[in-house]
């Protein structure tokens, strides 16, 4: 297992390098001189030249990339040109909040998606199946901001069960979790809809397999066949899909964080984009890539846990 994980991490190195290159080139390709942007229209050419030297922009492009790489290797992504804070400290401050939201919505997705999908498969073409299929279709097609605002209006504004805006600063764990419910449901419902569909089709396929008949032939009660034989096999493709979707989920948290005004990577990146804060953008793009690579690694490892055929390969 450790060897497998190490190997997967090694595979991630070229991917990461490619992303660094892409991010670097993208920021250089964007028209406009960052020094000019920072200092504004009124700056003297001398001031701009001075800043260019300070930012290292007077060096050749390959040399700049080398500087960027060396910085990244030292964990230094530069500083925000707006606030002057280091990119790392900016991201570190909001990363827990985004991870919390991602994990919570993943839990919502699995807790609702897997049982609904399995139930739907076992009642194929009957009322529960049709209801679940229509429900998941609605879940998939509802944009996060629409659903989020709907939830806010009903549960936060009308019923007052949850806070409208996440409380900031030091709050109790209970308050923190209470503020997490609506955003997690907003993001999780999409996940659940997706997982439901994958579980359903995977389950349908597994229920037709020979070994299900074998289990029934030895007298295993039906519910036990479903739980011990069918579900354990049907879950394997679900793990893969959830893993792939984890990246999308991290990306989707942008919208949710905007709607619920939660601090997080999503809000940070949208702010940076609006202010053309290139170092922050650059750093966050690398961070997102890292998160997705990490998510894929966790998926690969989880896959090995669920599928014994992978462990020995």
């Amino acid at each position, binding site marked *: 297992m450790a060897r497998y994980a190490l190997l997967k991490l090694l595979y991630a190195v070229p991917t990461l390098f490619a992303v660094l290159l892409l991010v670097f080139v993208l920021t250089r390709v964007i028209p406009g001189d960052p020094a000019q942007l920072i200092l504004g229209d009124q700056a003297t050419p001398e001031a701009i030249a001075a800043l260019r030297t300070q930012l290292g922009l007077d060096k050749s492009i390959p040399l700049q990339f080398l500087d960027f790489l060396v910085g990244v290797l030292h964990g230094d992504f530069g500083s925000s040109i707006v606030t002057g804070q280091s990119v790392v400290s900016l991201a570190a401050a909001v990363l827990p909040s985004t991870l919390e939201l991602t994990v919570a919505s993943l839990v919502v997705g699995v807790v609702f998606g897997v049982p609904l999908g399995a139930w739907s498969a076992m009642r194929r073409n009957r009322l529960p199946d049709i209801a679940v299929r229509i429900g998941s279709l609605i879940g998939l097609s509802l944009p996060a901001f629409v659903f989020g605002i709907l939830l806010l209006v009903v549960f936060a504004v009308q019923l007052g069960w949850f806070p409208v805006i996440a409380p900031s600063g030091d709050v109790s764990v209970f308050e923190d979790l209470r503020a997490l419910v609506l955003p997690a449901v907003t993001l999780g419902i999409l996940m659940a809809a997706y997982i439901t569909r994958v579980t359903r089709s995977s389950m349908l396929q597994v229920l037709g397999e020979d070994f299900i008949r074998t*289990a029934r*032939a*030895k007298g*295993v*009660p039906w519910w036990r066949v479903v739980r011990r034989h069918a579900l354990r096999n049907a879950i394997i493709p679900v793990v893969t899909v959830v893993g792939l979707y984890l990246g999308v989920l991290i990306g989707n948290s942008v919208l949710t964080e905007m709607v619920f005004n939660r601090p997080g990577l999503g809000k940070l990146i949208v702010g940076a984009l609006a202010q053309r804060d290139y170092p922050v953008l650059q750093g966050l793009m690398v961070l997102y890539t890292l998160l997705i690579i990490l998510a894929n690694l966790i998926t690969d490892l989880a896959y090995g846990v669920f599928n014994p*055929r992978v462990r020995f390969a």
Partner: protein
Amino acid sequence: MTDAPVLAVRGLSTQFRIGGAWRAATRNIAFDLYENQTIALVGESGCGKSITCQTILGLLPAAVARTEGSIVYQGRELVGLSDAEMETVRGKEIAMIFQEPMTALNPVMTVGEQIAEAIRVHRRCTKAEAKAEAIAFMDRVRIPAAAQRYNDYPHQFSGGMRQRIVIAMAMACKPKVLLADEPTTALDVTIQAQILAELRDLCANFNMSMVFITHSLGVVAAIADRVAVMYAGEIVELASVEELFAAPQHPYTRALFQAIPRVDETAENLQAIPGQVPPITAFPEGCRFAPRCPMRMEKCAGRPPRLAAADPASPHAVACFLHHDLALEEAAE
């Protein structure tokens, strides 16, 4: 041998819902299985052999399949039992093994767990007891280093070894009847012979009777006491192995014998049976083999012949007007 059969099948018909209508895939299946006996069901693919076995165990989904007739196991009627009642019969009283050892085992469960599960669903015992017994059965079906291999997964075994696991699983509760659905078809010839020997040995040692499905007459000769030849959902000939091999009566049985390749003849002389088994939706009226039969007569197209002995003193029964004039009463439906 006791007088009462372990398993008595009478007038068994399995019907499938096809396009809104119920169609009989098998009709009027009847045979007795006595203790320590093996009956072989022989016929081409699509003759209803597997369906008959799965019907006996009630494995076909009720939404698409229904059963008429009677299956009496040790004096107890199985047709009409609830699924919960059937669960106490499956595996414990009547067990089944399947054709494809590669897919018959759950790929994400260790083989040991799968055998132990068969024990634990039928008997109150601790996990350790079930494990010890499962290992004993793995040992019994000659799996080398059984205790070490308990925790291995199916993909770590060869086809022959997997079939041994499937057999150990079926034997785990010492059933009285074993339904074997072409258990050797997917294996190569040497392994085939080993598995057949194993099954014969187990039957003798555990006082077990067997319904053995095959399309190979060679396998029939090796394992069966009696043979039921099936065609298009019906038994067309029922006899002891000796009688059937000495004097096959039904033209279909004879055709099956002629279709066996022989080393002392050239391949051009191989007599394939022309045509194929009709699909369930297009069974002919009278005798279902008539369209492919080289000896068909005018009356064969009318009413279906009944399975009966040509000579009342003999248990050798055949459903063919060449041998008697008895027809199936419930013909025109």
